[in-house]
């Protein structure tokens, strides 16, 4: 199993391998990061703020004099797990609904599509702002809200894919065999839309990372003293004029994480097409 995965990875184009490496790196950080973080995430360790990298604080200190490296590691954990979880949840739910709508067709499809249209036309940031304000911002709620915000977008894409596939002969074959809707959805249709769905998930992942940072800009988001990567950028933004490591490192972290994820998914897609 592992060997076959490794050989698959080796078969990826260079950009895909770079992407995979970045994703794996951040996954490892997310899972094992807390073990290697030099300081507790909320500890005030430096008298100075926005100090540059030193041997004691590898990435300097933040706007309150906390260790940037430790906060970055924890931030990566939140961002990766939260955004990934929300992206998976959004794509899973959106796609399930889309499959249901596409296979049932008719009025069911019309009603669901109209509802999704309604949700998609409400600006997502403001909508999630309302939801966070209404329900609070514990981790699980944040994940649910971020997922909920991006379900309609995924639905749109998944439904378009599914409607195409539902018209394919192999689905007719399954129908003629007497297969139920669930078999058709999960066995016949879904496997054929995995790649575009993955690509969509990659994009939604990026959007959710941005949404979380946008929420933190508006004063919501992950609860302190923890912070996701976007919030780290946000809370240290006053260090930007001096080019503080406290703002540059989380910004770079977001970029490598999201670009990595998408390079990897792009590469998978390219392989699947050929």
């Amino acid at each position: 199993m592992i060997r076959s995965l490794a050989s698959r990875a080796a078969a990826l184009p260079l950009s895909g391998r770079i992407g995979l490496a970045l994703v794996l790196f951040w996954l490892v950080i997310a899972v094992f990061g807390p073990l290697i973080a030099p300081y507790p995430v909320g500890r005030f360790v430096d008298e100075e703020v926005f100090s540059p990298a030193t041997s004691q604080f590898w990435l300097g200190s933040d706007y309150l004099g906390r260790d940037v490296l430790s906060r970055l590691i924890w931030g990566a954990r939140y961002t990766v797990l939260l955004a990934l979880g929300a992206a998976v949840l959004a794509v899973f739910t959106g796609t399930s609904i889309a499959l249901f709508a596409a296979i049932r067709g008719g009025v069911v499809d019309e009603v669901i599509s109209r509802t999704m249209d309604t949700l998609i036309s409400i600006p997502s940031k403001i909508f999630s702002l309302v939801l966070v304000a209404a329900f609070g911002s514990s981790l699980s709620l944040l994940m649910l809200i971020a997922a909920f915000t991006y379900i309609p977008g995924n639905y749109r894409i998944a439904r378009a894919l599914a409607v195409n596939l539902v018209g394919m002969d192999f689905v007719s074959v399954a129908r003629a065999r007497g297969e139920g809707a669930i078999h058709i959805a999960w066995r016949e249709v879904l496997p054929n839309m995995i790649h575009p769905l993955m690509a969509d998930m990659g994009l939604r992942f990026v959007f959710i990372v941005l949404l979380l940072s946008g929420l933190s800009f508006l004063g919501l988001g992950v609860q302190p003293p923890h912070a996701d990567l976007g919030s780290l950028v946000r809370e240290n933004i006053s260090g930007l004029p001096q080019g503080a490591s406290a703002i540059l490192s989380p910004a770079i972290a977001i970029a490598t994480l999201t670009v990595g994820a998408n390079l990897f998914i792009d590469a998978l897609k390219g392989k699947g097409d050929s």
Partner: protein
Amino acid sequence: MTVEALPLSRRGFVSGLAGASMLAIGACSGGSGRRAPSTRGAIRVATQLSSTSDTLDPAKGATATDYTRHFMLYNGLTTIEDESLVATPSLALSIDSDDRRNWYFDLRRGIRFHDGSELTSEDVVFSLLRHKDPATGSKVATVAEQFEEVTADGKYGVRLRLTGPNADLLTVLSQSHFLIVQAGKADPDGTGTGPFRLSDFQPGVRTVVLRNAEYWIEGRPKLERVEVIGIPDEVSRVNALLSGDVHIINAISPHSTRRIEAEPSCAIMVSPSSLYSDLIMRQDELPTGNPHFVLAVKNLIDRPLINRAIYRNMSTIANDQPIAPFQKYFNAEIPQRMLDLDKARWHVRQGGLQGVRLPIYATAAANGSVDMASIIQEYGSQVGLNFAVNRVPADGYWSTHWMKHPMTFGDTNPRPTADLIFSLFYDSKADWNESAWKNERFDKLLVEARGATDEGLRAEMYGEMQQLVHDKCGLAIPVFISLIDGYDKRLKGLRPIPLGGLMGYRFAEHVWWED
């Protein structure tokens, strides 16, 4: 007691109660000006809050932006013009009271509103009484409850009878909410007697005012045009100042002061104030009602750290009671409480509080509370108290969270007198008795101090009340927060007034522009 209007003169601002050490006027030498304002004496002010709730009604004023706007358009019966915080007559020519309960105001003659009509006692009576009408939605309706009767006495005389004696009435009346509007205008439209006339007003966007050439104080104002806008984002606000797009801003984060000081054409003005964000521990709930809990928390607050990390040493370390060192009646005898983890641990053990789990509600609506909560959470974890910071949105905070959970943060604005702060927030019957503490001795002292005529005795009573709050009240007050403004150095005449930023929101009438 009779208070006479003082001859109008500009006062020096260097000396005074605040003391030079607290007066950190950031100044940098040299530096040529950046972009000049388009018209001579036309400036742009950026404040931190501006929304659709922006109002022209002084009674509804809620933000620094509102106060600034109102002081430009209207005048009060009294005014506070310097750091002494002594209220002096403004629209009133003289004010008399024998018993501090019945007051007589003699108005200045010939003062005209912007529409040309003359100010009369009718306007004053209307302006004072409208606070008692619920439909007005006045922010100071509770304060106005003490106005038992307000009547006109001829065209220029106003009689005011209070429900009880109040030595601080003149200070109360100097607040922006009690500015005088035209009689009959339930929704004031900006027509006042103030130094500027309204030119453009769009809630949440901008207020533009032009110099009132017929202003009743000779030589004021000196600016031709003032535009007030809101830039809610602090970093953007500072950038706007640095790029010359605005000329004075308020509510600067201590972390940004270095940036402004590094820019030769700009400077900062720090106004020490008695503003504080306090951690509320409800006494009517557990475990916060446990006295050991309160003392444990009070002992695990690292005040120097809060001062240093959150406020870049620009705040004043507080001692869990609301009177700041630079205020009248401050009790310097109370020993300063410092971070003492051993003591905190001892209280945790004594109170059987090991392993307590509790959320602390913090919000952007209470200055610095999110970071303070983080600090308290961090130290709490070292003494066996498991706090979780629960940051909630600023909107809805006061109605939904404030005082509604065992641990929330409050945010208390400077009050001009000790009596006001104690009666509004510490009297056991007060609406805003945040921690719901009850101390009979304190309540008794509060009433006695109000009527005491002897200053020494009064000081003694206020001193004891501070001790009581420090020891027993369920509020932890880590620091007094200074208000920091930034300005273009060509703007002259600014000086801090501890009532609030921007010279207690009154700067527009006093400052001038020099290229």
